[in-house]
């Protein structure tokens, strides 16, 4: 397209620029994400204060009740309050979801960054391992690993870490390949800085944002995995309240009490919606030049 259009674009750009420079709290996507995720975390933390019921104790006389004044979302087949189990489930699913990201984030980012920065045999080895792990679909490896390691929270952390470090390694390697050719990095090296200093002082702050943005969608993936494992009966063992196993329990009564299976799924949807918005908002905030 010719220059007159560029002129037009220039005329248009003024509002666009002020958009990327506006303070973070004016970024609607980011704020919406923060509010949703914040409320969910708050509900999880305050669960014992928010509900008079116990998430585990059975009350068989009150099983499978429809929503009412005392049980807003009804009760499950053991007479437990669904809303209570939903709130306590948030504690499990959100905790594991957020914590599970930490190990792969650190391990994957460091390996990918080193591979991208130094290249050579280290890069080749790391990337071949990445290729191998990439060949296994996320769920296949997670399910098998959780089975092999034995059901339970620590197995889930390990299984997720073993599978999802790969994505961070790929992202960071790509970032580093670009970053190390940037003038400011070349200049720092020529100025006599050591590799370590260049990596930590100059490159990390510039490339970490992409890994951070990805981490938001990764938390969503992890929560999906935990819920899926729970649904398959491979995750957190009953009677602990967990969204996936709640859906599994509710599926039995799909024809009579469809809320039982629907509600926990909606909880997952709201959670991932919040995290996705947060990720999009972060991406607007951290790397506005990459988004259209």
């Amino acid at each position, binding site marked *: 397209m010719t220059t007159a259009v560029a002129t*037009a674009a220039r*005329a248009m750009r003024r509002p666009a620029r002020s958009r990327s420079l506006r303070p973070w709290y004016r970024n609607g996507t980011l704020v919406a994400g923060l509010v949703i995720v914040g409320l969910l975390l708050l509900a999880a933390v305050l669960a014992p204060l928010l509900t008079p019921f116990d998430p585990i104790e059975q009350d068989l006389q009150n099983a499978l009740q429809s929503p009412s004044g005392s049980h807003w979302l009804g009760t499950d087949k053991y007479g437990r309050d669904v809303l209570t189990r939903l709130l306590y489930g948030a504690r499990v699913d959100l905790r594991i979801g957020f914590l599970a990201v930490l190990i792969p984030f650190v391990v994957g980012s460091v390996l990918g960054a080193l591979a991208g920065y130094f290249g050579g045999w280290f890069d080749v080895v790391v990337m071949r391992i990445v290729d191998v792990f990439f060949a296994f679909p996320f769920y296949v490896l997670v399910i098998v690993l959780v089975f092999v390691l034995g059901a339970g929270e620590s197995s889930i952390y390990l299984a997720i870490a073993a599978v999802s470090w790969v994505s961070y390694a790929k992202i960071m390697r790509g970032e580093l390949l670009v970053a190390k050719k940037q003038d400011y990095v070349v200049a720092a090296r020529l100025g006599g800085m050591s590799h370590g200093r260049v990596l930590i002082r100059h490159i990390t702050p510039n490339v970490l944002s992409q890994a951070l943005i990805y981490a938001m969608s990764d938390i969503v993936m992890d929560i999906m995995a935990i819920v899926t494992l729970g649904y398959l009966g491979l995750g957190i063992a009953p009677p602990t309240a967990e969204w996936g196993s709640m859906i599994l329990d509710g599926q039995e009564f799909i024809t009579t009490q469809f809320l039982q299976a629907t509600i926990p799924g909606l909880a997952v949807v709201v959670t991932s919606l919040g995290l996705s918005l947060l990720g999009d908002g972060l991406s607007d905030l951290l790397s506005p030049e990459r988004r259209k």
Partner: protein
Amino acid sequence: MSQGSSDVISSTGIAPADEPASTAELSRGGVPLLSVQDLSIGVRLPGGRTVSIVEGVSFDVDPGQRMGIVGESGSGKSLTLRAVAGLLPKPVEVLSGRVEYGGTDLLTMPAKRRRALMGPEIAMIFQEPMSALNPVMRVGDQIAEGPRRHLGLSAKEAGELAVSMMARTGIPDPVRRARAYPHELSGGLRQRIMIAMAVSCGPRLLLCDEPTTALDVTVQLQVLRLLERLCADTGTSLVFVTHDLAVVNQTCSELAVMYAGNIVESGRVKEVFRQPRHPYTRGLLESAPDFDRPDRELVPIPGFPPNVADRPSGCPFAPRCGYVRDHCRQSMPPLAEVAPGRQAACFESSRLTEVLA
């Protein structure tokens, strides 16, 4: 005008005397093929404010006439052309004015009727043939697309027409080349493909947006000659947008000079070149190298064109003008007749009488 001559430069650049009454005069009284009237192009900002990039541009193109529009980057010449073709890039749009083709306003015409004109009546050639050709479609199919749509040809007939159009535009081995993808051809060949595509439906008006800018100088000349020959053969009118005065000199009979979204001078190419009546045109001519007089000193125009978003109140060229007077900064000089067939938008036009050549 001695069009079709092989010696383009000398025929159009130097021999001025034996010009017949121009085509414009011949068709006087008749309806011009293309008539752009008071055309403003710009962007509507949220809140109702508009930023205009092209302001009140008017010109006529008669059948068989070849009109060059010259200006710097950002002068609005390409947008004017694209408005005629109906190809303004979003969010740019026509703010006001008329674009009449054969007496009918293209802008108010139903979209479907307008599209039916694109190809058989009006065709366009773009600046950068690499990006203007679909990268994943064989060039022969791209040429054949228009004839299939508009002339109702079968795939086979259209394919044959495409090959013959390629042969007419001087592409060697057209049967094999028709099966090539754009990236497999050289820049010159790609532009010939664009030309073959544009003339494939026999249009009466050909719009060219800097069609030779992306080409080597030698290839440039070949492509210009080809264009000129094709137009002369078929009596096709041409609107030719460029920043290169030499190209206009080689190709066109009429000239309009644009600056900051306005036409500042217009007239027959030869006359404008010989005696520019607007300081900007004069500056352009003095800053462009001339092959015929390589020893002439080149004088650049000082300063930069204004930002369209905040134009000065008076003449937009005033800040860069050597002839500027106080009243130039007060109000905008209108485009007025300064000699028969010559228009200029300058209060001081009468001071510019020096003959350059």
